[in-house]
């Protein structure tokens, strides 16, 4: 690799760390939302659906800006919750995790839902007639049968997280070695007249990781079809 600086290496590691953390944190929430939308009928289901999918169509800059308004020094979540607890989020890697989680969340929910919709409803009904409560139902029927959807959703969200830029640069800033992920490092090199070689090198890293993740996702998808 052509002369990566220590901050470039930490950008690569940080990207992976942020995307992984965001994905893991989102998993329980993603599963819950997908479960609610697939198996439960309740008022405001459409509202939840729109709300969850909104980050998919909103410009990430808007997501970032709204998060900044909420979590920033003058934001109300910050004033009510974070400052009394002494938590600082903005311009830390945790902010990058939050931004990535919000932007990638709809992808995860969609995949899990697809997985859940393939479950034979009679299996669930059978378990109910045999006396399983809803929790038993979720743990022993729904979770195992939608596990591939869950993994596929996680992979997709991870891949999206690696590329998160718009929301991240607003809430996490661009601090080399601390919050500078691969896209942010590329952005910095791209605006520098002498940065083309390094920008290209980081692009190659980015492309390599993305292709690897997408191939894995594709392979998972085939596994799913085969077992159906």
């Amino acid at each position, binding site marked *: 690799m052509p002369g990566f600086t220590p901050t470039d290496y930490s950008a690569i590691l940080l990207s992976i760390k942020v995307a992984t953390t965001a994905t893991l944190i989102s998993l329980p929430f993603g599963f819950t939302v997908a479960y609610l939308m697939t198996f439960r009928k309740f008022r405001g289901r459409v509202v939840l659906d729109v709300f969850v999918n909104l980050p998919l169509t909103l410009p990430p800059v808007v997501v970032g800006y709204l998060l900044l308004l909420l979590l920033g020094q003058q934001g109300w979540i910050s004033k009510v919750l974070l400052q009394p607890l002494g938590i600082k989020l903005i311009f830390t890697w945790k902010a990058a995790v939050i931004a990535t989680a919000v932007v990638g969340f709809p992808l995860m929910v969609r995949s899990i839902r697809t997985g859940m919709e393939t479950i034979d409803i009679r299996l669930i009904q059978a378990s109910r007639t045999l006396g399983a409560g809803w929790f038993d139902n979720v743990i022993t029927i729904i979770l195992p049968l939608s596990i591939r959807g869950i993994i596929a959703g996680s992979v997709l969200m991870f891949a999206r997280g690696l590329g998160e830029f718009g929301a991240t640069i607003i809430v996490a800033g661009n*601090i*080399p070695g601390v919050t500078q992920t691969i896209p942010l490092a590329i952005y910095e090199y791209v*605006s520098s007249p002498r940065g083309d070689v390094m920008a290209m090198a980081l692009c190659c890293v980015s492309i390599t990781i993305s292709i690897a993740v997408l191939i894995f996702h594709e392979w998972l998808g085939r596994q799913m079809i085969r077992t159906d």
Partner: protein
Amino acid sequence: MKFRTIKLLLCVFCFVFLTGPAALAADVNLSVAASLREAVTELSADFAKKSPGVSFQRNFGGSGALAKQIENGAPCDVFFSANVEWMDYLEGKRLIDASNISTLAFNEVVFVGKPGLKVHRLQDVVKLEKIAIGSPKSVPAGQYAMEAITKAGLDKQLENKLVMAKDVRECLMYAERGEVDGAFVYKTDAEIMAKEVKILFIVPQNLYPRVTYPVALTVTGSKKAEAVAFYGFLQSAEARKVLSKYGFAVK
């Protein structure tokens, strides 16, 4: 029905792409260092008032980013840089008309922060948690500040504390919002724009080269009469007066 839809789409397509603002001959494209925003806006407005028919397209940003845009073929007739380096870089690429480069103004690097902050000299900055600086890869304000930090031997202690901004105005915005404890900006930015923060200290001039704004006609600009006339206007006493009004030193 389908055919009609396609026809309609074609019409929309033609309308959008063919009727765009036709580039007028009297359009002068400026690429301007972010810190000169207000000053150059006023200068070009003054010039446009005196020469009817001339209009300006202004593009603001970090000087390095602008230089790169010009290198990649962005339309630009007059380039205002916040340091000599990016001007020389373009001259080296033969994109600048070497006989039409001059020095427009000078500036100083200062440190801004909340008024109550106990930061009075460069050494105090290491006590802070987050500091905004223009990305030294492309933003001159950041390059000057980084040079001063390095010369003062503080670069290791400030590692992991520096938030890289895409231009000097973004730097100031971070400080204004209170998301960082302080920021390295130009004296003029602090004077024109700052509301929540104030100048805590001036970075000692012996730590970095003087902030110099060269201005030049690009090779394409030197063939455009309006651009040449505007470049001439920039050398006038009237233009100097506008610049000093915004806090720039003119000699």
